[in-house]
């Protein structure tokens, strides 16, 4: 059992982070609901965070984790902004559908 666990290398963590990032990106691109699109951006953030922490553990210092705290703070601030914007957008169109804003083309 320990031998299989020791097979977990950096690449596995990076893969997880990458997969989470890609899932978030695909979700962002295909979702129509504004709040769910935002949720996917948060998911992208977390994918990046996992990568950062993995690199931190790999190099054996706290730089990755320190940077992660930065990212989480920024994610939180951005969350407030984004949700505020979504509320304002909802007030205009009474819908959370991103397609409602298609007329901003050209």
């Amino acid at each position, binding site marked *: 059992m320990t031998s299989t666990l020791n097979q977990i290398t950096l690449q596995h963590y990076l893969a997880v982070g990458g997969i989470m990032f890609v899932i978030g*990106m695909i979700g*962002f*691109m*295909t*979702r129509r609901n504004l709040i769910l*699109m935002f949720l996917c951006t948060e998911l992208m953030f977390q994918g990046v965070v996992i990568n950062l922490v993995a690199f931190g553990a790999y190099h054996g210092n706290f730089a990755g984790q320190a940077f992660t705290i930065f990212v989480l703070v920024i994610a939180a601030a951005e969350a407030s902004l984004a949700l505020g914007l979504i509320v304002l957008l909802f007030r205009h169109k009474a819908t959370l559908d*991103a*397609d409602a*804003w*298609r*007329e*901003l*083309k*050209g």
Partner: protein
Amino acid sequence: MQDLWIVQHSYLIPLLPLIAACIAGFFGARILKGQSHWPIWLGVGAIAVLSVALLFQTVGLLGHGAPPVRNSDSGTHAPVASATEHSDAKTVSAVYRAFTWIAAGDPKNAGTNEYFEVAAGFFFDPLTVTMLCVVCGIGFFITVFAAGYMKGESGYWRFFAYLGLFIFSMTCLVMGDNLIMLYLGWEGVGLCSYLLIGYYYEKPAAREAAKKAFLVNRIGDFGFGIGIMLAFAAFGTVSYFGADGYTPGAANGLLELAALPKMGMTEFQIQVLNWLPFLLMLGAFGKSAQFPLYVWLPDAMEGPTPVSALIHAATMVTAGVYMIARCGTLFVGNEAAMITVAFVGAFTALFAGSIALRQFDLKKVFAYSTVSQLGFMFVGVGVLAPVTGVFHLVTHAFFKALLFLSSGVVMHAMLGHLDMRKMSGLKAVMPKTRWLMLIGCLALAGVVPFAGFWSKDEIVASAWHASPLLGIVMLVTAFVTAYYTFRLYFRVFEGPKVVPDEPHPDHHGHGDDHGHDHHSHDAHHHHNHEPALMMIPLIVLAIGAVIAGLALWQGHRLGHFLGQSPSFVGAFELARDTYNAKADGAHMVNPVVFGQQEYRSESVVKAEHTSHYIFMAVSTLIALSGIGLAYSLHLKDRPKADRLALLLTGVARAMENKYWVDELYQAVIVEPLRRVGEIFFTLDKYFVDGLVWLAGFVPQLGGFVLKLTLQRGYVQGYALSMALGIAIILLVVFL
């Protein structure tokens, strides 16, 4: 001659008229106005005085050295001087260099065509002094006349400013010590001619005439320019006699290098010398209105009459003759070129004379007469008799200016009319002008003892000596000249009195300040026709027209004077070396007409006198018969002239319409060029401008495409684009 004050300060001669022109130009419009003639009078007057003083000083410097050693005369006709005789001929010349104008290339290469140096330099010799006196002296008197003639014109200041500029250019032309100074003056006088012909620029005909003059001149100047460039390429200098002036036996300048024996020259130099005279003569034909580039001169009569007198009779048009006389050594060695000059001159003389026979506008008659007389001068220089050409230049300047200015007085009195069919018997109306014009006409027709007789006779004699055909053509032309001149005189001044009532529509209102009604008065009651300001110059010119010929001819005075010019000495020696070896006794180069009297032998002197008297008699006879014919057709029995014209109606119409040469040029040259121009214009408008439009359109198109594809307003689409963009960048960077 180098030490003369005038030579050391010769920069004044171009400078004073230039300053005068600037003063008149800058201050004339607002400040000087009707007094704008003062700067020009002072400037040109000062240099006229300087020129005459220089003339006297130069005459004083002339040597009368012993004739050089020559073979004893064995009774043949041959003028002596063997081909190998070195030049001992005395010359008088000086060079003054104000500053170095152009210096291009490495000075170590001076003398080769790797180093181009042009100095603002002036070369003085008897030829220069002669030309200067003609230009400045006659120029001054014409400016005096013009002040009276142009009085009351709007743009008075403009006229005098341009006149000053013209005198500046003309002095640069005749005084320049290299071909580039000559060309500077050449172009300058062309420009001033354009400006002055187009003086009445509101009149469309004047604008067209000005353009025509400039463009036709330009064709000649093109050949001239190429000639100068080739001369530099072949000989490495454009200076006439080098930086230190003429030294006998040295070969520093172009004119001396061209006269060196052909054996010492490179193939290129010999080739250039074959073509150079033809290129240079193109310029001379353009400037001096010879066939086929004469068409601008009659149209140039649109300009004010003083302009016609100064520029198109006395000075500018003689620049071509001066150039050939100056650059004698470039021409005389090339037999084909000399023949061309002589025959083109003769043809033009007869051709233009025949057109003048049926012209009714006073100034047009004199314009064609000028073309014809210039033809005489070219014949003179073309038959290796440059002294005769310059002699005729001087006398012609006097009487032609006189004739033009008199026409101006007539035009003023006739309220702008110049058509001789509308006026007659003016001797009652303007007696002083009548006598002055009669003097001018007698001089032009070549009646002894007036000026034109002596110079024309010399040319006819030299032409006959060279080729009897040429002699006959010139004699016929002399007859024609006498006829048309007196046709004009008899029609206008003699006979019953007829004056036009109405002013000519183009006549400019000088009379407005007299406060009376033009239209209801007979011209007889008009203001003084012959104001002093206009009469005095005419009287001076008339005196010249009477005595100048005899004074210069008698004792070979002008020949002696010009013969001490390095140009004439060089030309004579080259001609002698080139032709005497091949010619038989009768066709040896005549030293007299090069001014080299010392080279003649006794028997030649005697033979000359006899043939001269024969020619004088023949010329006089011809002139008198021309006058006689004019008398019978235009005074005694005027309707006979009209009947004769009806009889020969085809010929008469051809002459009247100038043989349709202008129309021919219009159809063959101008119209095709205009079509080509229109084609290029269309090409430019659609193709070239189209390309530019395309260059502006492509980004627009790109933007439009992007707008339609990428900016759909679809947020997820934007995100996808971002992701794709990053992917592409990463692929490019890491692969």
